[in-house]
């Protein structure tokens, strides 16, 4: 893993989530989220929940909101497809849902099986009424997550930050 290209944006994301009092982190791992997951798991004020499938996190965070806590759902773009119908729950109930999505299927993707869902991710989210925020510069990740979190929690909206493969680097499996 190259620390030069990764920079410190996961730390910026973590700081932003803390500043918005996010207490539940639901995730299906992605390499791009690895550091953020570690930070969340090490924080005593956060509960990091590993999911079997991404739509579980949509329902979990609806329950968290009912109980007075804020959350964030971490997944890769393939996981967005698993969430589609469950997004009806926060959309209809007007509950906030902050999603941080690491993109696959773009920008030199090594694995063509990731391309269909990766290319459809933004459209699918928008079709379900989510606000989308795309970011591909490390220095802008923190402020973008901040903006999305504010619109989610203040506006009881679905908000997804799409973290470009340019931030993470295309997975090559060593090739």
């Amino acid at each position: 893993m190259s620390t030069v290209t990764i920079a410190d944006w996961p730390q910026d994301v973590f700081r932003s989530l803390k500043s918005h009092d996010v207490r539940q982190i639901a995730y299906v791992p992605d390499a791009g989220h690895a550091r953020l997951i570690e930070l969340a798991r090490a924080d005593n004020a956060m509960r990091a929940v590993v999911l079997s499938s991404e739509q579980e996190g949509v329902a979990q965070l609806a329950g968290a909101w009912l109980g007075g806590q804020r959350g964030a759902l971490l997944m890769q773009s393939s996981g967005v497809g698993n969430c589609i119908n469950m997004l009806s729950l926060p959309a209809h109930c007007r509950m906030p849902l902050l999603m941080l999505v690491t993109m696959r299927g773009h920008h030199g993707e090594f694995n063509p099986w990731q391309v269909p869902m990766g290319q459809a991710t933004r459209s699918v989210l928008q079709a379900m009424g989510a606000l989308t925020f795309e970011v591909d510069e490390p220095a802008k990740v923190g402020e973008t997550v901040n903006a999305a979190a504010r619109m989610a929690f203040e506006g009881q909206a679905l908000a997804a930050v799409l973290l470009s493969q340019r931030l993470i680097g295309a997975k090559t499996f060593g090739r």
Partner: protein
Amino acid sequence: MSDVLQAGRSRAYPLPRREVAKALLAGRGEALVVAGLGATNWDISAVGDRADNFPLWGAMGGAAMLGLGLALAQPGRRVLVLTGDGDLLMGLGSLATIATQRPDNLALVAIDNESYAETGMQATATAGVVDLPGIARAAGFATVDSAVDEAGLARVLPLVHGGAGPVFIAIKVRLESLPLVMPPKDGAYLKDRFRLALLGPGAVAA
């Protein structure tokens, strides 16, 4: 080759679901109650619609995980999820997720009529060989039991309300057609009503 479903087997089960819901909710105390879409929604609403109920009208497969998020946010309150076999089967992976978090205040109750009752009584996988409490036990739930009759129901009630969580209780109920008893269906209203009751006026303030 045919499948192993025994459609209609549950017509002979002794426990009527509305009586089961009444018995489960009679001892709820301060518990927050979530019901899965369809029949369990109508069941808890037949007992009495109230602000600290969250009856789902959709989100199939999500009732148990909604209960987990609520239980983690409110560790001092018992959270009781009543849901059907169809809803649980759609989200079986969530049993692994919940067992991994080990919420000691969460109880899941499967009201199992072995059928998709809202869509024409088609058999679910529990009408064959699938053993929901067996799956919950293997996933690692702290307390697991099941009931098929009055004696079983009497045995599991204290586990629902006081067993070490996460609790999974499966109750086999009779397949029957019942009048629909509907709570309000505007989810935004149900949400605000629930949050006001639980968190006070600050929950909906600017």
